[in-house]
């Protein structure tokens, strides 16, 4: 479904049948349209993630508390905030990657197209198959460049046209021209920036809907960072992207919407809370909350 379709047909969308949880395909009035891209879909956007009052704790420690926000399709949503405010916890709860952490407890709801991803009948492997992730440190498998991309395809049974799929993924990650003559060589021989683009290729090869990027450029040099950011602009045409970053300039450059998480220490307990969530331009120029202003002005963090 294209963006234009979603405007023309308000009743469509996988979540439209949900009852008690409320309508999932929501319409928002145009607020603070960014001057650089006037996006018609911003007036009425399809919600991919609808997060209600999300709290995640590990044992006695609360990582994030009471986070509610909506993430829109084919947009880049940035999550910024100081160290330890639960940015990674937040993004890793979106594809159930925190499940294996001992003592992890989750409250609230994360609706993905209207489906609670923590419902008892949900298979976390299926969740991750649709919601891909790229990590802070490039982590290619100790396999060849080709096999890094092809491995998951084979495992998921997407073996028809394997060569084409691998090429398409590598092109999609703007890596093809650099590696097409050395596909059989070890991926560990690539530079850090190339490895990270390989990880992106690996993630998009299985055709997910969402890409979660957990500080994808923080281990890279400025040139590699620039190429990753450029790539993200291309990727958002096909994917919904959520990026965690501690680099505010990066959020300002790439994201349409930005969520600012911060540490709340009001009652003696530290926990990450969502302070403000809005258009990126609003967050950086006219933030509603004093804490957001202090952070984006560089007063703490």
């Amino acid at each position: 479904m294209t963006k234009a379709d979603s405007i023309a047909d308000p009743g469509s969308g996988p979540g439209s049948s949900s009852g008690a949880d409320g309508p999932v395909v929501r319409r928002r009035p145009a607020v603070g349209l960014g001057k650089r891209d006037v996006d018609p879909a911003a007036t009425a956007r399809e919600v991919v993630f609808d997060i209600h009052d999300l709290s995640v704790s590990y044992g006695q420690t609360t990582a994030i508390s009471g986070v509610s926000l909506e993430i829109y399709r084919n947009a880049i949503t940035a999550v910024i905030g100081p160290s330890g405010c639960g940015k990674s916890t937040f993004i890793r709860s979106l594809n159930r990657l925190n499940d294996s952490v001992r003592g992890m407890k989750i409250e609230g709801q994360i609706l993905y197209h209207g489906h609670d991803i923590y419902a008892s009948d949900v298979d976390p492997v299926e969740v991750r198959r649709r919601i891909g992730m790229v990590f802070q440190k490039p982590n290619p498998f100790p396999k060849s460049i080709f096999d890094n991309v092809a491995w998951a395809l084979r495992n998921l049974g997407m073996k028809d046209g394997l060569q084409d799929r691998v090429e398409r993924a590598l092109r999609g990650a703007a890596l093809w021209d650099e590696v097409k003559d050395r596909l059989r060589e070890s991926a560990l021989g690539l530079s850090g920036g190339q490895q990270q683009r390989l990880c992106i290729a690996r993630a998009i090869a299985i055709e997910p809907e969402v890409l979660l990027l957990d500080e994808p450029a923080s281990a890279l040099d400025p040139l590699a960072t620039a190429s990753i950011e450029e790539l993200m602009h291309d990727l958002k045409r096909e994917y919904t992207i959520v990026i965690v970053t501690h680099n505010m300039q990066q959020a300002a450059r790439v994201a349409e919407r930005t969520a600012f998480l911060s540490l709340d220490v009001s009652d003696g307990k530290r926990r990450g809370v969502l302070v403000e969530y809005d258009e990126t331009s609003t967050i950086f120029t006219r933030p509603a909350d004093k804490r957001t202003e202090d952070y984006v002005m560089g007063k703490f963090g």
Partner: protein
Amino acid sequence: MMSPLDHARPLVASGNLRRRNLVNRLVEASATIAAIIAVAVLGVVVYSIVERGGSALSLDFLIKDPLPAFSGPGGGIAPAIVGTGLLVLVATAVALPLGVLIAIYLTEFAGPRTASAVRLMLDLLNGLPSIVIGLFVFGLLVVGHPQTGFAGSFALAIIMLPIIARSSQEVLLVVPQNLREAARALGVSRWRTVLGVVLPSALGGILTGAVLAVARAAGETAPLILTSSIFANNVTGNIFGEALPNIPVSIFSLSESPDPVDHARAWGSALVLMAFILVAITGARALHRRFDQTQARLSRR
């Protein structure tokens, strides 16, 4: 009262520094001597076995059968060599897959409490006297039946199991966690992740552990006396029906013989066994080092 130090005096040891230097030299010397003793013990053992067994060694000794009964002592130990090989082979075929599966369970699936309990059990099993294991298998498989090669292999497998499981577990723990996360984030199931990413990365270490277990099992005598010691001087390959001749029990019975020719053959057999174990262990070390270097080279590039 401390007198002020004269920082202009010559920089030679003074005060209690002379005593501290002496203690330092004493400790260093005793540690060095302890290390020399360890090497010397091995040297003396190897030397005495080579000296006494070397005379018995010949090509015939390695490839010929012993002389038939009542025709006097002499002949080769070929059946014992083949028998030991077969015993260890069958034991490895049982213990290696089981041990690796146990290691996979411990590192990939078990909770921390279960894992530490199972690890403790494995260490206890590893500490069980081999005669006790022999006695157990004797009661289980031999009482009321003839001794069989399989009973011997079964006892050896019990001895090998904890060694393989523990050493494999150690190398599986070294496989970086972020590779597992990368695989999980691609929507690949846990087991396929283990098979496709974790095991290949740990293969060298697992093989090294297996070779060390083989070296240990090849020399075990007590369980074989109970399970595979009444044997004919030939290997039929019928491991479920007959006892297998083997080197450790041969050494034991030859050294009990009144005939000095048999004593020389016992030393010769000991030399063969020792040579096999030394070659296996140094081979395992070389294998491990090569694997480590490959890994290091791959991750450096």
